[in-house]
């Protein structure tokens, strides 16, 4: 591998000079096609501007090769870039949490890959993350090994495709598991990889249930409409479209709706399945003996993400409703340095694509290296007050809608179907509310906080107590009346904060105290259940005598206050 010891500045691969213009051309393709179709005869200057933009973009992209350099010193990773505004991004090497190597089809043809280095902090604000677009594929893989495996020699850091090292793992061994203590003293036998999971072809059956195709359909629609508008093409004039529209117009309204929904559903299902194959083909999750997890996947655009296990703070088992209906689930890493969101598929934090729930649970247990109870064990329910809140919240909205519509229908000319639709929605909302309550739960298992919530997307998050920074306790007016609070465990990983919704105050404090021993103790006022109503507000300011509080809550007593 590329063993670099010195601190010499390195350049991006010169082959990116080829990639960049092509990428720009593809990105601006609709405008260019429009230019070709319409020519300059249409009179508008829009296409010409697009062309000028293209030229500028290509120029700047080319310049980037000359201006961007990077180096890896024993302490830092540095990237210098910018032409007019020179910038040096410096990241201490012990701040590197994840390394993401992506290669799209152009990159792969030319043997290139794009490297993104995730750090604990900078990713949050969007700016300052290190991106190298693009390096040679071998260089990229080497860089990853260099950054995350502290031993400089890493054998078989997989490149852009699964290279079949250590395919013959004798069973799944959850050794050297996720606990920081166990992960650090890794055996020094240069890079042993253990496979934790790999895509099985039968998982593709979950593809249609992911609905990722909706986005694809949206993108295609957007592309077509842009093509039409920039090229001044009237879609209605094209013969096949015209005849289809004609056929469509001849249907009665209910049939028209049914046909539309059916066509859309079929499209979305096909697109989702294709999307699944494109994104997750060749998926492999492996554990490297030096304390990292590797995710390799992708059919055309390949992606290899490396996560430092010490920074893995937990897992999220997420089950969108459709996927849950067919007993599928996906797994998302809760780790610092990787953003969650963006569909959780494009984000590098995905640890397992939609797969059978059982598989997801067993992989999760192997990744966490511990108790299966964290991922599949029973949870504590939140009680009748929380259940009532689920119903009042969801039914309340629908009832309010119905009332408003009724009023408007009576005194104004709002069509009647608005409130009828509201009535029809009532049972559905009730079902969702019941499901939301059923899914609500929490537990405290083997040093992990487990919380589950949601119905349309049910998520179960297992969060390591060591990764929890602080605690927020929130209580709205209504929650106060129901004697409930929402507890948020703040963390630097994943979504930054994980909530236990509508839990009793006492239980919330118990969870928080268990998670951060001693932190809350000075702020608790304990055990006089008889003198206190259950819904006593801890924040009620004028509590005359809090015996446990030295000095009492008076505003003038403390020397710090000088007002």
């Amino acid at each position, binding site marked *: 591998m590329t063993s670099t010891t010195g601190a010499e500045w390195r350049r991006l691969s010169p082959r990116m000079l080829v990639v960049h213009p092509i990428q720009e051309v593809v990105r601006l393709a609709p405008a260019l096609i429009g230019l070709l179709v319409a020519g300059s005869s249409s009179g508008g200057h829009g296409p010409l501007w697009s062309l000028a933009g293209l030229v500028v973009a290509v120029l700047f992209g080319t310049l980037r090769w000359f201006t961007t350099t990077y180096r890896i010193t024993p302490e830092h990773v540095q990237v210098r870039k910018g032409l007019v505004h020179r910038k040096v991004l410096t990241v201490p090497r012990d701040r590197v949490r994840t390394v993401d190597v992506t290669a799209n089809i152009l990159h792969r043809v030319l043997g290139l890959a794009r490297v993104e280095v995730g750090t604990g902090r900078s990713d949050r604000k969007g700016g300052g993350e290190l991106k190298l677009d693009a390096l040679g594929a071998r260089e990229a893989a080497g860089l990853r090994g260099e950054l995350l495996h502290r031993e400089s020699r890493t054998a078989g850091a997989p490149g852009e495709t699964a290279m079949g090292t250590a395919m013959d793992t004798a069973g799944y061994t959850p050794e050297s598991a996720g606990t920081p203590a166990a992960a650090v003293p890794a055996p020094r036998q240069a890079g042993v990889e253990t496979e934790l999971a790999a895509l099985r072809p039968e998982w593709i059956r979950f593809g249609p249930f992911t609905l990722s195709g909706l986005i694809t359909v949206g993108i295609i629609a957007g592309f077509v409409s842009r093509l039409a508008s920039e090229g001044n093409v009237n879609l209605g004039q094209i013969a096949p479209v015209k005849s289809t529209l004609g056929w469509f117009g001849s249907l009665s309204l209910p049939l028209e709706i049914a046909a539309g929904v059916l066509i859309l559903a079929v499209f979305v299902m096909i697109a989702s399945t294709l999307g699944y194959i494109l994104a997750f083909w060749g998926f492999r999750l492996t554990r490297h003996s030096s304390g990292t997890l590797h995710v390799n996947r992708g059919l055309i655009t390949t992606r290899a993400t490396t996560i430092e296990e010490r920074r893995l703070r937990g897992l999220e088992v997420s089950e969108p409703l459709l996927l849950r209906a067919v007993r599928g689930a996906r797994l998302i890493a809760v780790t610092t340095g990787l953003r969650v969101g963006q569909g959780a598929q494009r984000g590098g934090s995905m640890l397992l694509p939609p797969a059978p729930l059982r598989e997801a649970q067993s992989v999760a247990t192997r990744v966490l290296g511990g108790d299966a109870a964290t991922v599949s064990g029973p949870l504590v329910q939140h009680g009748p007050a929380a259940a009532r809140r689920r119903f009042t919240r969801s039914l309340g909205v629908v009832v309010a809608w119905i009332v408003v519509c009724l009023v408007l229908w009576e005194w104004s000319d709002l069509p009647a179907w608005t409130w009828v639709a509201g009535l029809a929605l009532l049972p559905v909302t009730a079902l969702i509310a019941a499901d939301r309550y059923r899914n609500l739960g929490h537990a405290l298992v083997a040093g992990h906080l487990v919380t589950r919530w949601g119905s349309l997307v049910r998520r179960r998050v297992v969060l390591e107590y060591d990764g929890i*920074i602080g605690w927020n306790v929130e209580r709205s007016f209504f929650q106060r009346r129901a004697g409930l609070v929402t507890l948020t465990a703040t963390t630097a990983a994943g979504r930054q904060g994980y909530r236990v919704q509508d839990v009793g105050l006492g239980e919330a404090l118990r969870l928080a105290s268990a998670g951060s021993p001693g932190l809350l103790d000075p702020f608790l006022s304990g055990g006089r259940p008889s003198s206190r109503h259950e819904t006593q507000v801890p924040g009620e300011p004028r509590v005359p005598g809090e015996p446990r509080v030295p000095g009492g809550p008076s505003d003038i007593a403390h020397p710090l206050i000088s007002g």
Partner: protein
Amino acid sequence: METTTLRPPQHRVSRTARWYWAARAAFGWLVLIAVQVIWLVADGDDVGLRLAALVATVIVAVTHVTVMPLWRYNVHRWETTPEAVYTQSGWFKQEWRIAPVSRIQTVDSARGPFEQLFRLANVTVTTASAAGPVRISGLDRETAQRLVDELTANAQATAGDAT
């Protein structure tokens, strides 16, 4: 079952903060009222309705400007120990935040234009989590400065921010 609760933090914010909150809220309302007055003067149809709207706005504004600062003053509280920062805030939705001093990343003190007017400052304590900045507003400047110094000193003494 509920034997333990959170007690309120020890310190209230500065008394001047009430005037600051009132002034800030009043400013917002004045803009709205000014717009309504202009609208009232501008053209002549349906004066009654617009007058009623104006009166309603004024009533709501006066209530808000008088009640909110007092309420807020009663709720907003803070406390620091060598181990933790603890705040209480909110009125319709109350919130308690606890952040360990050992995980503090930055301690910022800021003064907006209104705060400068009343010689106040706010202090924001951030940890590595985007979900948990602890903010104490309406402190007088000396307290804010002392708090910043104290927290910075304590935070430097400990290491590790759990990223």
